[in-house]
């Protein structure tokens, strides 16, 4: 068990302090801590120290699409981005809809050592929306699944959604909905609006998301359950969630970094790197999402890290896969869109990217305060760094980032998982 002294770190962006890690826990936080008997001193030099980030929405692709990502490469990407816990989405091959598959993913996460991996279980068998998967068995399995989602597909049948919401109440689970009315989005390729009209690409209307969110918050209210809405992308969705919360409905919501920064204007390039589901929306939506994340209407940032091999993106728009990688750039995008705009301070970032996602997903030992006695899951951020994104340096197996060559602020220099460095001086351990 080693002792690490982090010297002069701005904990949650506050005044510089020293943090002593002893084994897997934080031993002490304060000014002028002694380096005596310490194995390693990390000079933080005014960098920001946050609790390790928690991503409630990651696609690790294993089993089945190991050419895109594996649990190992995905968790290495997570550690590079400052994450100590990720929730792995269920749309793998086979689908994570049984205790067997979620346990496999869980075990692979344990073996990786870079990050805690909490599998998400499918809501319905094969993500087909017809029949509930064995939610209870997945919860009782070694993986201890608490979050269920058919992400990639919407649980569109109102009865199935109602039953899922009711059923998970038995063990405190939550259903995370990918809100997309399927009939309204047949052939959809991008946000429906002026740009889609001009480009002749099938429109994905905002109302297809908003109508499902409206339905689901009402269902959650009716059955007295909690519901989590994945990747909100429109101003209207924000309004519905705000209304639902004001009514006392137990709803939480997430936004991705890319929906906080990018707009559908970028699709004019027909470059599939911008093809994502839900699609990039308008400037007005982006601003509404930022405001909502700031005022707490949107609870968390989740990456929707969606790795795809080069050939699935190096083609014409219609043929390209949807999604972008996000673990390694999330914090930088949040810094740019939320911190540098004055909408959130670093304590707010810690809340939206660690504390709240850990609460929603019941991630044990994560999202805890940076104080003595807590697990040493920590991340150190050099917020003053400026540089262009170079995907060649990504730990993810895939490189489908929209930020190649774009200058983003900040970079993660250190990540500790239970006192063990997974990333040190920007290099994976």
């Amino acid at each position, binding site marked *: 068990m080693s002792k690490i002294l982090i010297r002069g770190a701005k904990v949650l962006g506050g005044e510089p302090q020293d943090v002593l890690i002893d084994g897997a826990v934080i031993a002490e936080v304060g000014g002028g801590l002694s380096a005596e008997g310490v194995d390693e001193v990390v000079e933080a030099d005014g960098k920001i120290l946050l609790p390790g980030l928690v991503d409630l929405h990651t696609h690790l692709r294993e089993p089945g699409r190991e050419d895109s990502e594996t649990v190992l490469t995905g968790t290495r990407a997570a550690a590079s981005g400052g994450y100590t816990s990720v929730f792995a989405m269920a749309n793998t091959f086979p689908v994570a809809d049984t205790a067997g598959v979620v346990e496999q993913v869980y075990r692979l996460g344990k073996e990786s050592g870079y990050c805690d991996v909490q599998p998400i279980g499918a809501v319905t068998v094969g993500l087909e929306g017809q029949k509930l998967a064995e939610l209870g068995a997945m919860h009782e399995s070694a993986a201890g699944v608490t979050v269920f989602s058919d992400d990639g597909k919407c649980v569109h049948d109102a009865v199935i959604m109602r039953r899922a919401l009711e059923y998970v109440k038995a063990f405190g689970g939550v259903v995370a909905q990918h809100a997309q009315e399927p009939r309204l989005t047949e052939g959809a390729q991008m946000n429906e609006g002026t740009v889609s009209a001009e480009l*002749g*690409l099938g429109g994905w209307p905002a109302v297809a998301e908003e109508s499902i969110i409206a339905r689901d918050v009402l269902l959650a209210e009716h059955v007295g359950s909690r519901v989590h809405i994945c990747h909100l992308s429109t101003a209207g969705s924000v309004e519905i969630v705000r209304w639902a919360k004001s009514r006392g409905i137990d709803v939480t919501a997430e936004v991705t970094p890319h929906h906080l920064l990018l707009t559908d204007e970028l699709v004019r390039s027909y470059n599939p790197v911008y093809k994502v589901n839900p699609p990039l929306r308008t400037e007005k939506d982006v601003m509404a999402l930022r405001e909502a994340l700031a005022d707490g209407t949107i609870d968390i940032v989740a990456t929707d890290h969606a790795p795809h091999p080069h050939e699935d993106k*190096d083609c*014409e728009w*219609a043929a390209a896969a949807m999604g972008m990688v996000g673990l390694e750039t999330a914090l930088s995008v949040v810094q740019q869109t939320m911190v540098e705009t004055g909408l959130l301070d670093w304590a707010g970032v810690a809340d939206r990217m660690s504390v709240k996602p850990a609460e929603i997903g019941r991630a044990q030992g994560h999202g805890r305060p940076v104080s003595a006695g807590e697990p040493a899951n920590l991340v150190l951020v050099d917020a003053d760094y400026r540089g262009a994104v170079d995907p060649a340096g990504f730990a993810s197996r895939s490189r489908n980032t929209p930020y190649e060559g774009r200058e983003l602020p900040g970079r993660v220099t250190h990540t500790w998982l239970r006192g063990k460095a997974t990333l040190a001086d920007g290099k994976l351990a």
Partner: protein
Amino acid sequence: MMRHLISAADLTRDDAVLILDTAEEMARVADRPIKKLPALRGRTICNLFFEDSTRTRISFEAAEKRLSADVINFAAKGSSVSKGESLKDTAQTLEAMGVDAVVIRHGASGAPYRLATSGWIDAPVINAGDGTHQHPTQALLDAFTMRRRLVGRDAGIGKGLDGKRVTIVGDVLHSRVARSNVDLLHTLGAEVTLVAPPTLVPVGVESWPCEVSYDLDSTLTKSDAVMMLRVQRERMNAAFFPTEREYSRRYGLDGDRMAKMPDHAIVMHPGPMVRGMEITAEVADSERCTVIEQVANGVHTRMAVLYLLLGGNEPAVTHTRTEGN
């Protein structure tokens, strides 16, 4: 001139007028006993068709051959969109073979743009229709047809379509012809009105440089040209309109409606016409209907585009050019 022709929106007024003027010169070649120019001798053009369109392909092929180019026809029916690799692969194959230009037709919107901008190929790319996006040579041949009929064959040289009123009727939502025409006609100074049931008007149309109406009858009396779009019968099943009969009653062009148009006004159709629902035989066969001319003009216009993109800056047919620019 630009390097590629991807969208009618990319054409400046000068470019567009130059193409139409050049097409007039090309049309004169068609009147000769030997309908051939040496302009593109030794150049290889590939017609890369991922989607069936015999009419468009034959039109391009005729244009290419009249300019003495060597022609490769490549039909890659249906292979692309499912896997997505064949466009890039095919492009690189063509690049390796040293083609001088690619004419591409593709079911996916943006595929020609991707081809032109992704570094897969160096040759000029001409969009022969992509998804529901653009069909710029169709817009050019339509504009050419209008200029000849509404301004005059020789009187039109150097001119646009300023002040002409064009009504485009039908399935605007799925029509690359409508999109291309709105862009080009606006550039050339015409006033465009789109007429369709609201279900067939794209969300976001407000930003287009045109008017939108749901009422055909009120627009006919002030139209110099009425362009009927093809309405696919399968749209009916997707609830875009209740029945064929209702569509026809509200948006079809028959003899009575044609009679409301000014005497000089013309009826256009990109073809192939399905007589009945959108246009009656009486209208289709009338003097005012320019469908056959549009086909002939398509060859002249495509010759002009190919010539200008590949041939350079010299006038194509020196002796017929009147002005000295």
